């Protein structure tokens, strides 16, 4: 038996520590945006929305189609900066609408009938898995198994140097935009009337209804917010991984995002942010140390198991309903 299949090369990590970190944070920000969708729905319905990964990839397809229609291709376009920003914002909005719409549609088709019948939690989960299959294979039948042709939005330009490694415009855009969005969502949940409704339903749906909260509307709003975030994540995903849009792409990213949500404490908005960034970092560090990106998922799942052994409810643990005003 050969034993050289696994080798720990910490030197590689030390050499490229900061570059790995910045890239990990960029990926982590994308995971965190998707993880938020899982977490919000889980907080409100106690349901793992397995179809959320497909909600996300629907947005990514929309971005690719929209940008291709505008003439974006494999090589970066030469556009004035204002036009470029306008195009990207438009693409983002379209992705958010598509993902948000898909999320609400999934809720109407797969979850609402079950809720009306008072089904068990396992039934919800199976229905979610079923819906995920349906969407995945709709994309498969429609676009085939090959990835969509890559769409490059802009050539990353070095912005500044930290500890001898470069942060480029792409990383900066993704990270800042994602974090701003997450802070917005956190503030919506903490401060607005809608957020109060979400927290109330998360805490106790029946009492919330008695107190005049329209539960159905809150649930739809939660799915829509999760979908919008997934749409935004889709834009950044296409930016970072241009050739990753195919029917299984959502599943591959979704499983990491879901791990992120669980790692941070599912149902916890800030936990999703923390979990996302951690998963991004851990995956990158693991792949660098072990010298092969195939190890990424293995490392992430092992860390997840280890963390859950110590903190069975995730790192931040508390759920949406218990979050303080």
């Amino acid at each position: 038996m050969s034993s050289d299949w696994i080798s720990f090369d910490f030197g590689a990590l030390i050499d490229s520590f900061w570059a790995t970190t910045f890239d990990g944070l960029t990926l982590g920000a994308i995971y965190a945006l998707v993880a938020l969708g899982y977490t919000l729905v889980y907080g409100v319905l106690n349901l793992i929305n397995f179809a959320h990964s497909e909600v996300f990839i629907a947005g990514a397809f929309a971005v690719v189609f929209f940008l291709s229609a505008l003439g974006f291709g494999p090589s970066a376009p030469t556009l004035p900066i204002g036009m470029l920003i306008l195009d990207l914002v438009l693409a983002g909005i379209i992705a958010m609408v598509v993902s948000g719409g898909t999320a609400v549609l999934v809720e109407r088709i797969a979850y609402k009938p079950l809720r009306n019948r008072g089904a068990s939690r396992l039934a919800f989960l199976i229905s979610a898995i079923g819906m995920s299959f349906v969407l995945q294979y709709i994309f498969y039948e429609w676009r085939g198994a090959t990835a969509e042709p890559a769409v490059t939005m802009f050539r990353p330009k070095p912005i500044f140097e930290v500890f001898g490694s470069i942060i480029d415009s792409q990383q900066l855009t993704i990270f800042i935009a994602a974090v701003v969005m997450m802070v917005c969502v956190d503030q919506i949940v903490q401060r607005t009337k809608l957020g109060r409704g979400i927290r109330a339903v998360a805490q106790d749906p029946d009492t919330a209804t008695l107190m005049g909260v329209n539960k159905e509307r809150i649930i739809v709003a939660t799915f829509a917010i999760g979908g919008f975030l997934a749409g935004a994540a889709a834009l950044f995903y296409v930016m970072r991984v241009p050739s990753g849009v195919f029917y299984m792409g959502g599943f591959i990213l979704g499983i990491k995002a879901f791990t992120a949500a669980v790692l941070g404490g599912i149902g916890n908005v800030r936990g999703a942010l923390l979990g996302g960034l951690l998963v991004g970092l851990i995956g990158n560090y693991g792949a660098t140390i072990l010298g092969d990106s195939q190890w990424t998922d293995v490392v992430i799942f092992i860390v997840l198991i280890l963390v859950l052994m110590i903190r069975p409810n995730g790192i931040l643990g508390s759920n949406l309903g218990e979050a303080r005003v």
Partner: protein
Amino acid sequence: MSAHSPLSSVGAKQAEAYGKLGHQRPNWYLRMKSWWNDRSRWQQWLILLIVVVLAYLLPVINPPLITTEPSNDFAISCFNMALYGLVALGLNVVVGQAGLLDLGYIGFFAVGAYTASLWTSPDSPLVHIPYLWTLPLAMIVTVVFGIALGIPTLRLRGDYLAIVTLGFGEIIRLLATIVPVLKGNTGFQNVGRPPGEIDGAPIFSASNGLPWYWFTVTFIVIVMILLGNLERSRVGRAWFAIREDEDAAEIMGVPTFRFKLAAFGTGAALGGLSGALLAGQVGFVNNQKFDVPTSILFLAAVILGGQGNKLGVVIGGAIVAYVPLRFTALGGWKFLIFGIVLVLLMIFRSQGLFGKKPKLLTYTARIRRKVKKEGPPGDDEGTPPKTAPRRGGAA
């Protein structure tokens, strides 16, 4: 947040559900069930015997319309159906009986398949042993894997367990790709098979599904008898209690962790056995067969058949394997159709096709019949009511 027992309806809702189940079930099922319960013991055995014999003869009869030929050899299709049945039987112990959601069952299946090929294939550097020995070996190895996964994770509740098992399945698949000994996509050729020759040709071969089918059905029959006994024992009652309400079970003195581990181990062993059987029949194992969608198909088989119902899940498994083989034109649509079926099934019949009516398993058929004949038991001590919540306040 109320009780986090994820896989069951909780408390009062449950009592309500027990009452409702009778209405949800179509009449044919009820009629069949009561007809069956009215038969005497030997009549039941006789009918079972006939059913089993018919099951064995299925590929020989090769009924028109049902057959999967000419696109797929019917005997091999039958083997696949039986294999899915066996897998569903194993997963049912974990999901249906103990109520633990396992999304990575494919991991155990893979471990079984790789165990069989590592010890028999000429491509493997290990010592070679006869194929039949790899079946118990695969079961032992998967039990070890099951316990190794179970000890750190079974303290987690429902949804967390689901993601961790999903991760386990993915880890196994990725390791099969990365670790050179497991040969990734190249895989293992010429995995062993049971001995025996007729006229110089091996009885068990990749092209002849019949012996493999009989072999697998035999396993299904044995496993069903063993599981039936287990179900009626202390272990089965403990699983039942854990599934319905883990906290209550723990308070009542059921060592839940140990029994959950037992369920995990039992399920894992059956997964390993099925994996080894597949490896033997196909004769080739690589990393392409053990992905999450397949794992979810296994779960779909259990849900479709009706969790907790042994015969039901075997039929569920057979259906899940049968449909794409019979309707080959489906191609990639099969997953789409399974998705739609899952959603519709959850909306209209969430207990599956042959959902098991929750009943206390303590009582033998004899006592059940007696209770039935005499009507609902009174409040006098010593005669426990059959289904406690039915009679509202009086109980």
